């Protein structure tokens, strides 16, 4: 309840964090895109006779991500939480003849997505330290993926968004094909197919909007704020929902999820579950909820139904899975369903919850797939008929798996609890059936998780199972970082304060940072019945 009172309030000016203002760059967001690209090119072109510099390549990838996270943390600290407009904007004409500009910028939701991406970037490198084959290609592709995800987050021009959205597909597909598990071919082709379909839908939606607004500009500020007819809004919103559903994923466009989460290398799984798939919900937020209120109202039941189907399907599939990594893959779909429920409810509180769940859901999904993949690696088996009674022999992984499972369910003290509570409290009025059904789906997911814990962790040890070992230091670090980030926001959503004052320490608070942009997005939904946009 205390948390609720914090979240429901409109954002307030937050006193300056000590150290804010020490660093400023007009290219801050560009750095988050192009530094990984430059590092990837450096790795691709550096000589590496007989793999002599494999370790150096890993270090380059790690320190690149660390540097980006540092820069992003400064940006997060200096973010003006009471400004509803985009910040750190960069705008340069690009394809002037068709109205494209290199326009970047972030508002509150974008900033927390960037922080999430920075965290996941570090985590993915740590999770990939065990890669021994074709190290150069692996880290090169991982950095390119990171750049594409960051680019899609900060894009304020629809062309730039399409470019980075589509650019993520190829490196991820090759990473799966090259370093994936036994079903890597199916996983990669399904990913290309579904994400390609989503990209096509995004392009069509964008071009319909471009055409309807006079074909003068692809700038989001022009396209997404233009008054277009309800029919056009509906077409655009449907296209964007398809694009989002392929990426998040939402039932029935989730066909890639099981194979990718089960057979991609651990570092790639973490990136896909943590950030690349969150882009789907982020797109829905930007292009439907924030831009097309009439269509959002009209399609809200459909979106809520997709959320319900996704959560219930994922829970049931996890319940009957016989493969640990596949079960984790299904479970990682659940936070996405909760996010989409919040976006379907169209109330300020639910939208706030959905935005927070972009961050918390990304971490929870990354944690559950990461910990299950690591456990399967360490136990030398992923079959649930083989894995049993591992808690005593894998104490670290057991704790982390429990935290991951709890994070998926939204247990108190974790960030997903806050986002879940806000989403459900904000949804019960506008989408009562949807909220109830998603809650029921979460209960089913709880059953699936309990069954998984009982069998894998706390059952009788299987004497015929291969030898097991607990997580290595690197694995503990990457999983611990994910769990720590979930706990941190769960405990300090508004950031830690100096005792007895309102002065924040090093963290201004995720809720404060995201608040401003959310209030702008939610403004059309503050009235009971917002009038539709006028026809042009």
């Amino acid at each position, binding site marked *: 309840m205390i948390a609720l009172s914090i979240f429901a309030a409109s954002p307030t000016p937050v006193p300056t964090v000590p150290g804010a203002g020490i660093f400023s760059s007009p290219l801050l967001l560009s750095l988050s895109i192009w530094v990984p690209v430059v590092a990837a090119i450096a790795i691709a072109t550096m000589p590496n006779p007989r793999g002599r510099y494999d370790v150096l390549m890993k270090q380059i990838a790690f320190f690149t991500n660390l540097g980006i996270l540092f820069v992003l943390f400064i940006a997060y600290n200096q973010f003006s939480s009471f400004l509803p407009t985009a910040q750190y904007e960069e705008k340069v004409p690009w*394809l002037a*003849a*068709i109205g494209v500009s290199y326009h970047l910028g972030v508002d509150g939701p974008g900033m927390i997505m960037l922080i999430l991406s920075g965290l996941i970037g570090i985590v993915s490198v740590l999770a990939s330290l065990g890669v021994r084959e074709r190290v150069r*290609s692996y880290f090169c592709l991982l950095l390119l993926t990171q750049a594409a995800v960051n680019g899609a987050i900060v894009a304020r021009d629809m062309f730039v968004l399409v470019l980075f959205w589509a650019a993520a597909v*190829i490196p991820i597909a*090759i990473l799966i*094909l090259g370093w994936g598990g036994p079903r890597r071919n199916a996983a990669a082709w399904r990913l290309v197919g579904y994400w390609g379909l989503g990209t096509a839908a995004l392009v069509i939606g964008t071009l319909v909007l471009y055409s309807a607004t006079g074909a003068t500009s692809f700038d989001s500020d022009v396209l997404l704020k233009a008054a277009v007819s309800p029919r056009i809004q509906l077409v655009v919103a449907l296209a964007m929902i398809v694009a989002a559903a392929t990426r998040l994923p939402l039932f029935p466009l989730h066909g890639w999820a099981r194979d990718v989460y089960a057979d991609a290398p651990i570092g790639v799984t973490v990136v896909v579950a943590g950030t690349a798939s969150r882009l789907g919900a982020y797109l829905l937020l930007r292009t439907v909820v924030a831009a097309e209120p009439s269509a959002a109202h009209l399609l809200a039941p459909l979106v809520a139904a997709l959320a319900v189907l996704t959560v219930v399907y994922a829970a049931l599939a996890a319940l009957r899975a016989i493969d640990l990594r596949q079960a984790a893959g299904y479970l990682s779909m659940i936070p996405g369903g909760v996010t989409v429920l919040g976006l379907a409810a169209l109330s300020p509180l639910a939208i706030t919850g959905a935005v927070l769940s972009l961050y918390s859901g990304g971490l929870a999904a990354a944690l559950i797939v990461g910990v299950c993949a690591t456990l399967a690696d360490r136990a030398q088996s992923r079959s649930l008929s083989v894995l049993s009674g591992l808690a005593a022999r894998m104490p670290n992984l057991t704790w982390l798996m429990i935290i991951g499972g709890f994070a998926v369910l939204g247990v108190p003290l974790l960030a997903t609890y806050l986002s879940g509570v806000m989403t459900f409290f904000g949804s019960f009025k506008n989408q009562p059936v949807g909220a109830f059904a998603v809650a029921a789906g979460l209960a089913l997911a709880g059953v699936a998780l309990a069954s998984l814990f009982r069998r894998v962790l706390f059952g009788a040890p299987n004497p015929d199972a291969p030898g097991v070992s607990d997580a290595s230091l690197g694995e503990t670090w990457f999983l611990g970082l994910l769990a720590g980030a979930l706990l941190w926001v769960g405990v300090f959503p508004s950031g830690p304060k100096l005792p007895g004052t309102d002065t924040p320490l090093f963290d201004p608070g995720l809720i404060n940072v995201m608040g401003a942009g959310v209030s702008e997005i939610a403004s059309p939904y503050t009235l009971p019945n917002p009038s539709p946009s006028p026809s042009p």
Partner: protein
Amino acid sequence: MKYFVLAPEAIIVATAVVLLVATRLAWIRPAARRYLPAISALAVLVALGVELWAGATVSTYFGGGLVQDRFALFAKAAVLVTAAIALAVVDWTAEDSMSIGLAMPLFAAFGVMVAASAGDLVALWAGLELAAAAGVVMVSLRRPDLGLRLLVTGGVASALLLIGLAFLYASAGTSDLTAMRDVLFSRVPTIALAIPVFLLVSGLALRATLAPFHLAGLPASLGASPLGAGLLLGLVAAAAATVAIKLAGALTPIPSVYSTYLEVVAAVAMVGGGAAALAVRSPRARLAYLAAGQIGWVAAGLVTHYRSGLGGSLFLLGAFVVAATCGPAVMGRADGGEAALAGMGVLRPARAAGLALAMLSLAGAPPLAGFFGEFAVGAALAQSGHFGLLTLGLLGSLLSLAAAVRTLRLIYIHSPLEEARRGSALPVLTRLSTLGAVVFCGVIGGYGLFSNPILGLADQGAEALGLR
């Protein structure tokens, strides 16, 4: 000084003729032959420099037979860049004759340049035929049977074009493209105009190896040497596309006589090219089908009959001609089958990167040249309300992308074969070819980065055709 603008054409033709004559008469010592590719590429770069320096002057020559405008400047610059890279990047041990291999791309480039600056129907036809003839020579060097086949189908294409152009001339009463456009403003679309335009579109589709007219051109390109394949897939197709764009500019007053044909041809090419690229296993065949798919996008831009559409097509044509011409040349002798490319990323990193970028660019993958071009065409299609064609194009691009990823897996994931490790199945390494591959990667990767001036010039090119 007026004719100085034509100096690039003169340099190109002179270089080609000197190469042929000097080699035939044994003026060049065998030891000096290894410098010929570098010298030829340098000559092309000089021609490019002159074109960029002097080509901005708008003027007409030979009584309106040739026109130097922004369209000509764009197309000539694109084809000269392509020719320079192609000559540099070729693995000459995989070619049948160095002198002919150097001269024919120059003649083909000259053909495209003539077509690009054509002011009337005769010059258009002459430019296209010159480029196509160079292709026949290149194919015949290795496979005379395929050369003959190409000659026959080329003859059919030429006949269709000639009949179409003659009917068009008869209908409009002039062969001058600008005058024809002015005359057609006062005409209504009739069956008498639709029939020759249908013949023209068919002839051009044959020349550009557009599906379903690719059945003659593609096998010929698969049997030719790497440079010969690049010449057919890139330069000859670009010549046909250049002619198509110029004709579309002249026919814009009566778009209904050609837009339906073009729509069908573009849709079949985009989807069919992507599907075929996914189905075939030979890397060169895959590249050829990817090229066929992208030339379908060029045709789709013409359907719009708007300036933005023609500008987008021209912009994409620039990206296409570089990738389609240099792609097979970069691949070199590693074109025997999928296994030949295995591990190329380890053994020939620069060439492997070039081939990967060529494939991805032809598939329309971001952030490469082809993506920017296809998006520009897509924006024009949306602007003109052709969402069905746009959707089919996106489907084709999706299939093409999957095909390109298959090749990337071979290049970067698979381990090299023992034969490849010994080097016999891979292109020979030379400084010039490695430099050429690096420049090629830079052009494909940098096309998008510098797309503002490039698209601006393409847009001015479309404006030069009389479109507003």
